[in-house]
């Protein structure tokens, strides 16, 4: 009896995450996917077909017959979407790279710091999360605008003669993304570096490596899992980022998050914006799944 009970409970433990994913990921995904196959309508909800159980099975089949991939075809016909995807991926890639450049030395310094102060350093990295993300992005407007803090400081120091135009450019977006996502890059790299056996670097030096060569031949390769995890945690949300380009970017900035928002709110075109979202998901999820699959395979070997 108790055996059966424990078997049941162990199965339950596995089932819970699956149920969670089913309810909060798979079900919404299918709803969005289903909307993306519909047509806009001036109605409530603003698309057809709408299923009603009262119509019976024949009614549902009728509705399914109305589904079409027209919205996806539409996305390929307007260069706007293609450009937005490309520009989002580029901005996200550049931001991820910049974040890595800043985060790696930070994480390395933290891992090298005396064990006693590491918890404090860790706290400092997480500290910005205690303030609302939105407020922090707004704060950047005050810093970057022509009469903002940064320009005032540079003018005061005599570095520049006239205010720099940073706000409402891609530079401001990079600053915003790098600033906002830095902890997501620092933490996995730190955790990879922190658990590394210090005698490995000593062994490399003992065998003839200068500290620099030892870093590139031993420390960096061994921290790669952390680097990859950090890059994913920054790149994926950065591609679909909406708030930062909306607040800090200019009118010429084209990012898919903003395009999606426009389709949804300004144009009230739920089917097209759903299609945009589905494509975005495909662009991100499919390569990541392949990548992770390959990684697990190479580790298991």
């Amino acid at each position: 009896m108790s055996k059966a009970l424990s078997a049941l409970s162990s199965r339950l433990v596995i089932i819970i995450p699956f149920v969670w994913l089913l309810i909060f990921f798979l079900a919404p995904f299918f709803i969005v996917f289903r909307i993306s196959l519909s047509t806009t309508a001036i109605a409530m909800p603003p698309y057809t077909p709408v299923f009603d159980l009262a119509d019976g099975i024949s009614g549902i089949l009728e509705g399914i017959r109305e589904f079409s991939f027209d919205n996806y075809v539409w996305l390929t016909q307007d260069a706007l979407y293609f450009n937005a995807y490309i520009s989002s991926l580029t901005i996200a890639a550049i931001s991820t790279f910049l974040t890595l450049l800043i985060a790696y030395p930070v994480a390395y310094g933290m891992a090298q710091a005396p064990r006693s102060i590491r918890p404090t350093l860790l706290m400092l990295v997480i500290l910005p999360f205690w303030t609302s993300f939105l407020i922090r992005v707004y704060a950047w407007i005050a810093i970057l605008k022509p009469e903002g803090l940064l320009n005032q400081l540079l003018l005061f120091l005599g570095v520049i003669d006239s205010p720099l135009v940073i706000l409402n450019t891609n530079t401001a977006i990079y600053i915003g993304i790098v600033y906002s996502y830095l902890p997501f890059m620092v933490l996995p790299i730190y955790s990879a570096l922190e658990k590394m056996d210090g005698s490995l670097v000593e062994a490399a030096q003992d065998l003839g490596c200068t500290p620099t060569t030892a870093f590139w031949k031993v420390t960096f390769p061994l921290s790669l899992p952390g680097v990859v995890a950090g890059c994913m945690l920054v790149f994926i949300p950065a591609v679909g980022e909406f708030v930062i380009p909306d607040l800090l970017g200019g009118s010429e900035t084209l990012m898919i998050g903003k395009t999606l928002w426009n389709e949804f709110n300004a144009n009230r075109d739920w089917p097209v914006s759903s299609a945009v979202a589905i494509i975005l998901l495909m662009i991100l999820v499919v390569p990541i799944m392949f990548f992770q699959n390959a990684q697990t395979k190479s580790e298991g070997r």
Partner: protein
Amino acid sequence: MKSLGSIRRSFAPWADPTAKPYISFQNVTKRFGDFTAVDNLSLDIYQREFFALLGASGCGKSTLLRMLAGFEDPTSGDIILDGQSIKGIPPYRRPVNMMFQSYALFPHMSVEKNIAFGLKQDGMPKTEIAERVAQMLKLVKLEKFAARKPHQLSGGQRQRVALARSIAKRPKVLLLDEPLGALDKKLREETQFELMDLQQDLGLTFVVVTHDQEEAMTMADRIAVMSAGKVIQVATPAEIYEAPNSRFVADFIGDVNIFEGKVTASSGAAMTVAASSGFSLEVETSDPLASGADAAVALRPEKIRVTSQPPASTAINTVEGEIWDIAYLGDMTVFHVRLPDGKVVKASMLNAAREMDDPLAYDQKVWVSFAANAGVVLKG
């Protein structure tokens, strides 16, 4: 002088006053903040020697090794290697290599790449590297495992990869930090002999750090017993065991009984001590203490006989007691004999025959006896 214990081979440059030391610690002190890890220590190690630094954890033995490797610099004093001061030379420019306690194998490289790592750093031509790696793999009998990653190897195999990697560059000195610490007992014993053979074949100088006295005794030509940053005694294993220079060394290496008392008679080559346990103890010594002085005499358990009948000559070094404890270990039996004053004497006897003529039992009245040359007078 009569030799102590067995002689392994006729190799004793330390006894030759004209021999030049290969490694020389000269008044080396190393402090970490307030803590003095190595305290004004001087020590000579000779070429082709298998030298062991033995001591409890925190005695400074690892710091000494790390100073040789270049990971720590002495606070004061100098270290000479092959006639040159190596003070301030970074680890990557020193002609020494180290085998780490954790092995420190690079987890992202195959066995082959691990061994080739140091050679590549030196810019050795590819064909030569391949040759040397093959040679090393053969030496440690890991030819079949060349392509494996460290995590796919057993503990013993990893130990051998670490060894191969550290000798691949043919260093002048090989440093070994607790080289066998992570192996189980049986494997450790086998590997001890492998290491000794390897050292002989390659003609390298080995400096090994260990806390395991048995390991040090088995492998080393000479042992430095360390405590609190100082060397207490440097000598061959036999000398350390049979003629410890201090109570610390006598106590640290093996089991020992220490009798204390006042010297009652002293001649040129022997002295008599009135032991506090109430019997008179005669010791042969080349350097007897004066009459009336306080003396401590160390006796190894295997040099003490325990018999149920009084020994034939009861004239010297015999005392009555009672069996307190018996520990049967297979190859030998350890008896704890309680003397009339309550002192417990440890004595071990080889179980040379399967059946004993004179079996001893708990609480039995026995005679404890030992020869006049069995005891060592402790000076420190």
